[in-house]
């Protein structure tokens, strides 16, 4: 899309576009305060155009015609492409709480760049799914968990994905939320936080750039925050992302519940000073054993009698009074435990997810020792029932797949 804002100078327009048959668009103009709404005008227009469904692109001539005649004109259909991509939704209060205080700060620590993957039913925040190294983290929300009035469309089965800078996103949401609560008033819906995908010209540039825009409308004023995003992923890239996502769903056969994430994190953070590699073994008896070993020191921790989900076994009594190392070795020989080696920094990162305030956390080793998986569980508030609308899990690459 190529818009030419120069035509309009400082004061611009809002418009309502309606479309009759045969691609005829009638534009009704109204004045809008440019300084207040800034670059969002284009977004508004894009959105208005989105409503008509068939308009893919508006050429420069449209503006000329509009500026000249101010009445109906015929739009030229141009190449099909990403221009049909539309996303708009309102963040719910629950969604704001989940993102602002819990998920965004934690996911920010997982890595600077994240893929935001939106489908007609779900929103995903994905780290390292395409890059292949580093901790993969997969946060999945049913659209209702975060949004209402959720509208998405694209030529790729209504799926949109793009890369976004987590710290910028986090800051934009935080600031929008504080503005939202300050503005207040104006009725229950007036100060809702709208999120949408737009393309606009950044200052001093002639190239339209995609943004994820947060718009807070108060009674008399509005604030818009634009978070730059990558070019939306191509059909092939989205397919790749979807495939990686599908592959990341395999469950370990045995999962053990970590009783105290804070304590484990404390321990692992100190362990980082001692060694770089961490051996993690998990048994069907409910033992979690982590150990780092260098030529000068061996340091480890063993947590026993943890809650087991999945395949379990009864610990043999003769293993009771032996050291943690011997206990793990025997369990592995018996086939009752698996062991993998991961980067201690990755392990520590995965523990930082406790910032999202999960109700439980489980560690497990994927079949064939493909990765170390940590799954965070969320309960429906006030119950012990799993909240299926939110899920978060991480996959830590293993260093020696054998």
């Amino acid at each position, binding site marked *: 899309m190529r818009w030419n804002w120069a035509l309009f100078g400082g004061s611009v327009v809002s418009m309502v576009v309606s479309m009759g048959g045969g691609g005829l668009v009638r534009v009704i103009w109204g004045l809008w305060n440019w300084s207040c709404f800034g670059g969002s005008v284009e977004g508004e227009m894009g959105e208005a155009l989105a409503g008509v469904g068939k308009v893919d692109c508006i050429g420069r001539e449209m503006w000329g015609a509009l500026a000249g005649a101010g009445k109906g004109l015929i739009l030229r259909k141009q190449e099909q492409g990403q221009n049909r991509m539309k996303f708009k939704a309102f963040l719910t209060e629950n969604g704001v709480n989940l993102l602002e205080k819990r998920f965004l700060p934690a996911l920010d620590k997982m890595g600077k760049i994240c893929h935001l993957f939106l489908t007609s039913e779900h929103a995903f925040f994905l780290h390292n799914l395409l890059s292949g190294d580093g901790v993969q983290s997969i946060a999945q929300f049913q659209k209702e968990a975060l949004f209402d009035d959720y509208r998405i469309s694209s030529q790729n089965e209504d799926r949109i994905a793009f890369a976004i800078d987590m710290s910028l996103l986090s800051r934009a949401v935080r600031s929008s939320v504080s503005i939202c609560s300050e503005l207040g008033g104006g009725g229950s819906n007036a100060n809702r936080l709208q999120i949408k995908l737009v393309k606009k010209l950044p200052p001093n540039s002639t190239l339209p750039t995609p943004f994820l825009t947060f718009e807070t409308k108060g009674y008399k004023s509005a604030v818009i925050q634009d978070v730059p995003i990558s070019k939306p992923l191509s059909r092939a890239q989205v397919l790749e992302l979807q495939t990686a996502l599908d592959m990341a769903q395999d469950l370990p056969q045995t999962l053990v519940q970590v*009783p105290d994430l804070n*304590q484990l994190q*404390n*321990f692992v953070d*100190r*362990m980082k*000073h*001692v060694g770089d590699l961490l051996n993690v073994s998990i048994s069907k008896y409910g033992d979690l054993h982590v150990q780092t070993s260098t*030529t*000068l*020191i*061996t*340091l*480890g*921790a*063993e*947590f*026993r*009698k943890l809650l087991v989900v999945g395949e379990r076994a009864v610990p043999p009594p003769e293993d009771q*009074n032996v*050291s*943690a190392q011997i206990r793990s070795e025997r369990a592995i020989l018996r086939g009752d435990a698996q062991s993998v080696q991961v980067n201690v920094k990755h392990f520590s990162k995965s523990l930082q997810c406790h910032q999202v305030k999960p109700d439980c956390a489980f560690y497990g080793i994927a079949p064939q020792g493909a990765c170390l998986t940590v799954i965070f569980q969320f309960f429906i508030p006030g119950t012990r029932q799993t909240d299926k609308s939110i899920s978060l899990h991480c996959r830590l690459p293993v260093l020696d797949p054998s």
Partner: protein
Amino acid sequence: MSSSAVDAEALDLVCQLDNVQGMVDALSAVRWKRNQDAVIELSEHGVVFIVEETGCLQAKVYLQRELFTRYEYSAQGRPRLGVSLGLFVDCLNTFSVPGHSSFIEIRYPGPDMQLLLKSVDSLDACIYAEVKTRIPDSISWDYNFEPAGSTPLTFTVKSAALKEAIDDLEWPGSSIQIKLQPDPPAVTFRGEGHGNLQIDLYYVNTDLLVAFHCDRQVSYRYKYKFLRATTSNIPNSVIKDNRGSKLTIGRGGMLKVQHLVSVARSSTLHPHIDSAGYQQPSRIAYIEFFVKPEEDEDAVND
């Protein structure tokens, strides 16, 4: 637990400690650089850590047996073992959980002459470590500290003030003069180099100088980096407890700096401890530094 009792007979040392953080604090105080080797000396009286640098600076941490909740010593002679101090402190640190008093057991030697550590406060969660030891280098010089005459030349200064003074002396130069004079009773730290900085502590009230004994004027110069090592890692608990550090000048200008570090369980720390460190003496780790003076000092002093 029964198996450890059987093994214990063959071991030189089995001891248990209920405040790991205190031990971390005490050992951190003598950790003035990242990679340092320490010699550990075991005896029936306790455990001593000895660290030294280039024959000019030596530090000792005395962990008396009274600091331990259990201390079983059955070695012949006094075993000495070498460890990497930094690694040992980092390792001990993993046993220390904020908000908990961590209970650990230390045993020596393991099957491969390791130091064996493990947490013993929970049956279902256990932290353990095996630290390799090596045959220690011989101590390069003997720090026999002898008094410089019939009356000791000594003063006690608030640890926080001492640290601050030494920190302030960083900019003038690499050599610091320490002068004691009886009249008026005062201690002077003087740095000369890019500029001059002189810090005088007068023994007029006991706010800074808690005690002072000096019957004649003496003055020696010490390398700044060694002086700094004596205070650079003073644990926060020492400052918080408002403790004093004792400095003594011995024969030939050898400087001895002593700090006291609390190894009490954190729960007993809450009652206010006054400046004299009035507390069970058995719950204190003693730290001593010995600093050799620079040699070009004229022999006026003796």
